[in-house]
């Protein structure tokens, strides 16, 4: 069991759907991250929130919209995704500069 919880574990959606990925941690970490990972590739950073403020946006398309409602929660809102957006989406958290802890990920398939 990981200390970072992601839901759902699997998601299949059409290109016109709107869905959200959720991430929760209760370790008191003040930095939270979204990564995208394609098969046989390393994780790629998408967004970083530090103290609930967006610190990094790695030029991610606007069809991905992050939200950090409080220090324990991180959402990723999805809209009008493309088939190439199918991937494993990983959430992580840490004290800034400290070791990162990852959730188990959401496997996303776009039909």
């Amino acid at each position: 069991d990981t200390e970072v919880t992601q839901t759902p574990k699997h998601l299949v959606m059409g290109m016109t759907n709107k869905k959200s990925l959720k991430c929760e941690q209760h370790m008191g970490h003040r930095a939270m991250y979204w990564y995208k990972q394609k098969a046989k590739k390393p994780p790629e950073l998408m967004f970083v929130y530090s103290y609930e403020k967006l610190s990094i946006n790695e030029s991610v398309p606007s069809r991905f919209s992050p939200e950090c409602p409080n220090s324990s929660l991180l959402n990723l809102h999805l809209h009008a995704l493309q088939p190439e957006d199918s991937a494993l989406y990983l959430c992580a958290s840490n004290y800034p500069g400290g070791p990162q802890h990852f959730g188990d990920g959401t496997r996303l398939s776009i039909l």
Partner: protein
Amino acid sequence: GIQVEQSPPDLILQEGANSTLRCNFSDSVNNLQWFHQNPWGQLINLFYIPSGTKQNGRLSATTVATERYSLLYISSSQTTDSGVYFCAVGRTGGFKTIFGAGTRLFVKA
């Protein structure tokens, strides 16, 4: 930006064998982590090791920051060690963690 190179890219071991994985990075860093991603996609933090040596059971890691490399040692490998091992680096004050391409390990029974 910082480049991270891992070697070897692929490794096949017989159960019980030892191995050394290497991570080279192109610039000074303030933090370095080793992760194991199992076949189900779970990414587990093995070591946070910006410098020095740490050990955890059959695994140990050494980072020589001045020479810009880190090594991960796996002793008496087990089939459950199979998966991908990633090295990831970053700088203090920055949140960007840069991952290497990984070493894919398969341990045969």
